[in-house]
């Protein structure tokens, strides 16, 4: 009978080569899996960031619209107030000019300042004084001037002077100026 001195190696399903191969591929699969999970996570992160940014952008746009309307309103207030302030100052200057216009020799009893006109009630020593000292400047300012006189007991003359500016005439003159310039 012959005997062998070689110990037979154990036979297993997973040989060392197979284990090596499986280890290599397991590592490869794990790497692929982790890469895939990483990409999925990033994808989720991007989506949520995009949503957050979209909401934030919408809020910002709303905020901008609201601020713009506030700015517009303040600008309207500013424009209107400036117009009113200017109007008051112009009015002050007009009244001042009007009183400066009246000579010392003529005494006014009533003044009506109208939108496009001016009415004086007063007394003058003579018609000439009135015509030279008040009527002449009034005629240069107003388009239409009507005056009526009636005597007082003291020998002076009461007068009523009605003076009007024709806005239509001014507008048409302005239009002509514009036409000439163009």
């Amino acid at each position: 009978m012959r005997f062998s001195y070689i110990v037979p190696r154990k036979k297993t399903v997973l040989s060392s080569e197979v284990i090596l191969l499986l280890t290599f591929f397991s590592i490869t699969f794990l790497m692929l899996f982790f890469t895939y999970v990483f990409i999925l996570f990033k994808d989720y992160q991007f989506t949520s960031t995009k949503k957050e940014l979209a909401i934030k952008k919408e809020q910002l746009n709303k905020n901008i619209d609201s601020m713009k309307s506030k700015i517009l309103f303040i600008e309207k207030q500013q424009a209107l107030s400036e117009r009113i302030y200017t109007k008051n100052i112009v009015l002050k200057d007009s009244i001042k000019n009007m009183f400066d216009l009246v000579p010392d020799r003529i005494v006014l009893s009533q003044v009506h300042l109208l939108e496009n006109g001016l009415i004086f009630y007063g007394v003058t020593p003579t018609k000439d004084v009135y015509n030279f000292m008040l009527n002449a400047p009034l005629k240069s300012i107003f388009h239409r001037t009507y005056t009526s006189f009636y005597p007082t007991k003291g020998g002076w003359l009461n007068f009523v002077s009605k003076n009007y500016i024709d806005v239509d005439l001014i507008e048409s003159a302005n239009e002509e100026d514009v036409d000439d310039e163009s």
Partner: protein
Amino acid sequence: MMKVSITRPYVYLLILSVVLFISVLIIAFALLIPKGKDYRLDKASLRGIKIEQNRVQVFNDKTYKNLKNLQSKNRAIITAFSTKFNAKRFEKQNSKFFEKFVLGEKQVVTNEYESFDVYEVNASSKIDSPKSFYNFLEAINKGDWIVSVEFPIIFKREAKLIHSSFKIKVYSNSKNKIINKELNSTK
């Protein structure tokens, strides 16, 4: 001829290697590469969105700064438009310019300007010289309300004084506008 002999376990090993390799290829091409492409595109689009967001944010900050500037520059005007007209206070503030100053009833409202309510008040006063009236016209521009003096203005001599009667218009924010509420809330 040389004979190559491959044992059966090696054939199995080879087949397993090929199968696993093909699986790796399939996973890579079917899943990872398309997802990776999407990832790159998403990253680029997010960068674009962030740039746009930044632009909107900068514009928002600029508009806010602009608004705050306007509000601080025009604080007096904004307050004047939103202050309710008080005839007694107006009389008290301006009585120093007149010997006598009386305001009539407040009459609503001409719809002269969109977004603003306009009230008309008749006023009658007595002054000792026209200078008082000029001072009054200067003072109302610095007052608590936006007020304009309207035609007709009538001056009448009464002994040593001048009786004047005129109409004033008071401008305030329209109550119908929602924007006014917002405006007041941001002051």
